[in-house]
């Protein structure tokens, strides 16, 4: 019976994560629609492909090394211990493929314990984390449209999606991460580990890249560059909201016993947990997801005077800003955090645009970067003194730990991306020349399209009798 129960739990968990992966794909459908909607007609195709090709590139590199980083680096290494061995996550391990849990003769690097646990869960855990990775990379994509070279973005996408974010996840979004142990860092639904780091990376890229031609008047006043299709933008954001349900569900362990957690929880009540293996429920996050989304949209509608782009974007920012503590907040707290933080982010977006001439075409730095950063900081105060983990000896949640964590997340995205962007820029690989930017980055593709339409049209007309 115990064997069957364990088998059922494993297969349920496998299916649960598989469903979250499917749902999270909607985030990327949304990102593509959103970016294409914001871009002008002469840049559609390259904008679409720039975002879409992050999916395969981050996928293969997350397979090669990203997944291993998560399990290898929770101690730093060198902060709370050494490098952790995780053979099941090495890309050359048999458990990184179709496996039935036994150990074949001559199968190196597989222990019976690893095989029993990971043969059904490795692929779906990897897939769920991968979708976070692609999301983190995609966040940068929208802000740099219409003048960045696609190849430059794809290199940065691999850096952020398959190295930086998963490194910070290993530190602050892992049951044994050093930030959780030593700082009491709490960021259950990834305000910092996904959004703040992506916002930091986007800001660094934008600083080196510079604004689009025409974005600023000669006196430095910003011009509005309207989306060519607001409807496409809002549908894209709706799809991102929808995909975020999968994102939230994937941040939980759906069903686990206290004995399996092997921490301080007593009794035999099975539970869902957050990524730190501390108890929560899907019900709790459903309350808070919807309330924080609502707070953001309600505030956004007022602050932006009913502007669709910002009303929807602030809804997303509402979720992001409450995500760090949405496993534990009261729904009204989620509502208020989801309203107040995006309002600050909206103001900051325009302040930074005016003051520092940063042209963020989709407001990604504000929605994800500032929203994620402030969300982590707020959680440090709101959850002050609560246990960060079910394990003994971990620091409790506190404002200083979460503030330091938020800074670390933003900086970890900013600094390496700034350096890589500078290198790419020095090699003329970061930005298209001004003439090409004015023609539109789709110039050659549009030309070929128009020529084909003319040619086939002429041929068909010649056959009319």
């Amino acid at each position, binding site marked *: 019976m115990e064997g069957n129960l364990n088998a059922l739990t494993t297969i349920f968990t496998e299916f649960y994560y598989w469903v979250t992966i499917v749902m999270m794909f909607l985030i990327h459908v949304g990102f593509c629609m959103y970016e294409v909607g914001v871009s002008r007609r002469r840049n559609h195709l390259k904008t679409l492909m720039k975002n879409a090709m992050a999916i395969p590139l981050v996928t293969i590199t997350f397979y*090669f090394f990203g997944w291993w980083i998560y399990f290898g680096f929770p101690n730093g290494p060198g902060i709370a211990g050494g490098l952790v061995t995780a053979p099941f996550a090495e890309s050359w391990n048999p458990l990184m493929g179709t496996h039935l849990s*036994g150990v074949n003769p*001559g199968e190196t690097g597989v222990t019976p314990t690893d095989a029993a646990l990971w043969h059904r869960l490795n692929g779906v855990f990897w897939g769920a984390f991968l979708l976070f990775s692609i999301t983190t990379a995609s966040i940068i994509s929208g802000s740099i449209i219409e003048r960045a070279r696609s190849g430059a973005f794809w290199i940065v996408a691999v850096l952020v999606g398959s190295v930086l974010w998963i490194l910070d996840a290993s530190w602050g979004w892992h049951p044994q991460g050093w930030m959780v142990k030593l700082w009491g860092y709490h960021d259950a639904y990834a305000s910092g580990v996904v959004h703040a780091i992506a916002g930091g990376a986007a800001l660094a890229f934008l600083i080196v890249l510079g604004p689009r031609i025409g974005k600023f008047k000669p006196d430095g006043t910003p011009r509005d560059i309207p989306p060519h299709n607001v409807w496409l933008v809002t549908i894209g954001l709706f799809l991102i909201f929808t995909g975020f349900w999968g994102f939230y569900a994937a941040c939980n362990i759906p069903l686990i016993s206290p004995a399996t957690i092997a921490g301080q929880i007593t009794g035999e009540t099975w539970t869902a947990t957050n990524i730190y293996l501390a108890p929560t429920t899907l019900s709790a996050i459903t309350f808070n997801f919807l309330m924080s989304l609502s707070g953001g949209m309600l505030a956004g509608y007022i602050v932006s005077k009913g502007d669709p782009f910002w009303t929807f974007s602030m809804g997303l920012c509402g979720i992001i800003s409450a995500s760090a503590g949405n496993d534990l907040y009261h729904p009204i707290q989620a509502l208020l955090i989801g309203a107040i933080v995006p309002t600050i982010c909206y103001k900051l977006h325009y302040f930074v645009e005016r003051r520092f001439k940063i042209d963020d075409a989709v407001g990604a730095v504000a929605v994800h970067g500032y929203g994620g950063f402030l969300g982590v900081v707020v959680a440090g105060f709101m959850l002050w003194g609560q246990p960060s983990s079910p394990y003994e000896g971990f620091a409790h949640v506190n404002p200083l730990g979460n503030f330091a964590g938020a800074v670390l997340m933003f900086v970890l995205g900013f600094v390496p991306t700034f350096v890589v962007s500078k290198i790419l820029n020095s090699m003329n690989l970061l930005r298209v020349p001004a003439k090409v930017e004015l023609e539109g980055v789709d110039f050659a593709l549009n030309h070929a399209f128009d020529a084909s339409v003319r040619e086939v049209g002429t041929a068909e007309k010649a056959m009319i009798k």
Partner: protein
Amino acid sequence: MSTNGMESWAVDLKDIGAIYPFQGSEVVMVIIGLVFWIGWHVLQTRHENAEIEADMAADRSGEETRKAIDRH
């Protein structure tokens, strides 16, 4: 003879490990995968450079660019 060592399903599944073809060549496969990835970036960069060069040589009069700008 089979590429994954399985010739029948008359087995206890708990005794079976990996079932993909050519087990034992995982390291080689990873190396091939890495070469494919890096090679893709190299080819893409060349392709993008060529396309930018062509775009730079096109539309000397600026007429088509003006039309494209008008379409927003």
